[in-house]
């Protein structure tokens, strides 16, 4: 577990290095999802960086596509491409646009038009079932993204077809672009909503690696229904410039901020 905590710190650092290289980005959501990515890429997912399209690999759809830098950091750390490439975010001709793109080795789908990743993920899960492929599909949603009607279409579909090979996560960081989710578009109780659609639902502390892993292992055991894990997270987690502050969806982030972050997450001397 100690090494997994180190991996989470490295994802935080390198995803923010990625953002620092172009001076601003989706800081809040990148930092809130880093711990889930650490568990998935550090412990759970069956992947092969030398063969990104390996047929047996577990699939991942980052439906909240604006959090590309977090995914890029995890992939670079797992060897899908050189760490140095993280500093090419949004540069001319880059393989790393700020929203997830299949240009990047290890990214299964281009996303960013919110809600669409959910349908892609349930489609993949259905396809895997049809192929008798035991690989799993992981889907990462934002809580604001759950405003989209397509989320609920795909939720209905996944339950109807009993897609128990999909595990979805909602990064419930309680903010969207214009402000707090409860002010912009309140969604009442997301767990109850998904439960009523016929999903297996679990809510966990979204920055506790042990709890996240336990919830995923539980979800894998669960048969007959799709699974949803609501991650109770803090937008901007790990950087004092954002954590616990209002309106941290998209912020400037400099090389100087990166040095501060490095200190704050305790990477110095590690």
């Amino acid at each position, binding site marked *: 577990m100690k090494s997994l905590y180190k991996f989470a710190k490295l994802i935080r650092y390198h995803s923010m290095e990625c953002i620092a290289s172009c001076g601003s980005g989706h800081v809040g959501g990148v930092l809130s999802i880093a711990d889930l990515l650490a568990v998935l890429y550090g412990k759970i997912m069956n992947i092969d960086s030398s063969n990104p399209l390996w047929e047996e690999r577990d699939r991942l759809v980052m439906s909240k596509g604006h959090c590309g830098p977090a995914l890029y950091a995890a992939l670079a750390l797992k060897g899908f491409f050189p760490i140095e490439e993280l500093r090419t975010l949004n540069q001319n001709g880059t393989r790393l646009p700020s929203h997830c793109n299949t240009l990047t080795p290890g990214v*299964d789908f281009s996303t960013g038009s919110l809600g669409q990743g959910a349908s892609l993920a349930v489609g993949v899960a259905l396809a895997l079932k049809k192929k008798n492929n035991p690989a799993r599909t992981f889907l990462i949603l934002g809580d604001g993204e759950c405003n989209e009607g397509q989320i609920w279409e795909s939720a209905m579909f996944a339950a109807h077809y009993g897609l128990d090979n999909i595990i979805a996560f909602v990064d419930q960081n309680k903010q969207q672009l214009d402000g707090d989710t409860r002010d912009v578009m309140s969604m009442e109780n997301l767990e109850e909503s998904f439960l009523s659609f016929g999903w297996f639902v679990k809510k966990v502390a979204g920055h506790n690696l042990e709890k996240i892993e336990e919830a995923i292992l539980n979800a894998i055991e669960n048969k007959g229904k799709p699974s949803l894990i609501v991650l109770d997270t803090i937008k901007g987690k790990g950087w004092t410039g954002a954590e616990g502050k209002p309106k941290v969806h998209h912020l400037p982030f400099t090389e100087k901020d990166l040095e501060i972050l490095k200190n704050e997450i305790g990477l110095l001397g590690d």
Partner: protein
Amino acid sequence: MIMFREGEVDQRTALANQLVEEAKTKPVYALDSDLASSSGLNIFAKEHPEKFINCGIQEANMFGVAAAMAKEGFIPFVHTFSSFASRRALDQLYVSAIYNESAIKIISTDPGILNSANGGTHVSFEDIGIISSLPNVVIIDFTDPIMINKLIPHIIDDPRIYYLRMQRKTKEQIYERNQDFEVGKGIVLSLGNDVALICNSQLALKEGIKAKNILEKKGYSISLIDMFTVKPLDEELVLKMARRCKIVAIIENSSVRNGLGAIIADTLLMNRQYTELLKFGIPETLGEVGSYDYLIEKYGFDANNVVRVIEERLNLL
């Protein structure tokens, strides 16, 4: 004699039967949005229940599911009415399918005025305009069941996205089983020197045939083209016709603003081919209920109006 005659099955049945056949050896899937009884895909569902996915009334989700299935190696055919295939699920078509290079095959039924019995909310006059503005989508307008039977195997093997306009309930056929079809190549039904009539869809081609017969009786020499591939356009054939004939006239079951005629006009001008051009189809307007004959005449792509306007123009030359 160029003419339509009653065939054995309607277009939707021809499509379903062909897909049933292809799915025996290829990873062909069919997805519908609670319209399988309308699209004929219920025939496919009966034969290949494991390869049919009813998505319920969820066009957006259906396009995403299909795009993902294509990415996983399947060949998904998705059906909905043209109005929904072009307008309702447009961003899903763009992002989930086109941007992700997922070769879905869209069955877009009853385009243009063909769904008018359901009312103005169900018609799509602008679908060619919308879809042709997107990169990497092939647009076909099926003319008859024979064309469907013969093109479907090719469409399955072609790793491109297809938008397939189809009139569900017509059994009429113009081609024989030995006819060859090639995507991107128009079919020359007759070759004349005065007027080239270029048509897409059975509905428009029927008016084209009528107009040709009337004009020939009046002593004119007519080329008649079935331009069943709207995109990519058979530019070579269009330019050949423009050089050969005094007038190029397009008859189409879609908007004259942004349909086949607009694409042809652009092609002609950009190739410095300053031909007399006439476009017959649907004006920029909203849909309404009405019989096909009533609407064709109202919008002015009936044979009589086509002949009248062509003669007027010929007299000016």
